């Protein structure tokens, strides 16, 4: 399903899907919840031991993996709940506050 195929609000009734069905899957990937975030996780690859806790416990599927290695954060979706940072025993994820972010800039 492509982003441009999403049915827009106030689309004429003739062009909406009957019953509000959506044919296809996973279209919420086009809805970016990253804007909800207050604090932002900063990932430090060097410290990561790939225990996968952050990945397993992320409510938003926002821990990026490549070949079974954590590679970073999907900032398009991360809501900044801080679970990943809290469960990381290796200190590889640090939550940066808005103030810190504006003072020092962030990875994002």
């Amino acid at each position, binding site marked *: 399903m492509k982003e441009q195929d*999403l*049915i827009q609000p106030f689309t004429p009734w003739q062009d909406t*899907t009957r019953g*509000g069905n*959506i044919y*296809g*899957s*996973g*279209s*919420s*990937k*086009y*809805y*970016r*919840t990253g804007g*909800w*975030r207050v604090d932002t996780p900063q990932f430090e690859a060097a410290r990561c031991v*790939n*225990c*996968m*806790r952050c*990945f*397993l*416990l*992320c*409510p*938003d*599927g*926002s821990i990026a*993996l490549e*070949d*079974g290695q954590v590679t970073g954060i*999907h900032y*398009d*979706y991360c*809501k*900044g*709940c*801080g*679970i990943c*940072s*809290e*469960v990381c025993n290796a200190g590889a994820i640090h*939550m940066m506050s808005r103030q810190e972010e504006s003072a020092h800039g962030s990875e994002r």
Partner: protein
Amino acid sequence: MAYNMKNTVQKPERLSPGHRMCAGCAAPVVVRTVLRALEEGDEAVITSATGCLEVSTFIYPYTSWKDSFIHSAFENASATTAGIEAAYRYKKKMGLLEKDYKFITFGGDGGTYDIGLQSLSGAMERGHDMVYVCYDNGAYMNTGIQRSSATPRYADTTTTPSGTQSLGKGQPRKDITGIMAAHRIPYTAQSALTANMKDLYEKSQKAIYTQGPAFLNVLAPCPRGWRYDTPKLLEISKIAVDTCYWPLFEVEGGVYTLNYQPKNKRPISDWLEIQGRFRHILKKPEIVEEIQKEVDERWKELLKLSGN
């Protein structure tokens, strides 16, 4: 098959991000884990009762579901799945469908313990090949934290507020897992989120790949309703298990198995203190003691049932 966490995380994600559950909500973590237990390439139909999960994962035209998904109403998720599963059996019988499908139904505690109990009980009793997963956050969170029969005694909710003449909810929590076990279905289990997710993953796998109905009750902490800080998801889950407020166990063919016995059973005050919904009773030792007694009694019962 031994749990290989490193392999399981590489399976394709079946719940898309971009859903609108609150930051720190446990329910999507439960969903991600349960769906990860599906074999790669296996087809599934997911049903959801009305609730937080449903209204956040399918807001037209944004669906977070990668498998076929259906929501119809609050109290009827099990009956809806029952109809799909019956249609599936018909199609298989008639040679109209080659692929195998699995049927997984999600409901919150309101949709499971309360309004959906009849439909759930009916579907389980009739033996449909389906898994029902309750993500239990202990209140009607979607409508704003009203008490349900899953709400623990003394919790402050918006319909059992603590006040000068009230200490919050007056009644103990309903034992839904016991009720489902009493249906004598092939598989019933209670689980929680753990650091390596082994418990929930393995129980999901068993539930999905056991022929016939299966029921999972998973503790799903709600930062908003329980009033704790969002990062504390794992900690609060662990305390629930270590205080024996939320034991991990399974029932197969009538046989109870305790999956985890804490070396040091923590006092229930650890569980109460971390949540704002119990703040009003923390300075009442007799109430805390009463809660401890209830937890101890239930734990003792479970030890007996599981032959410990």
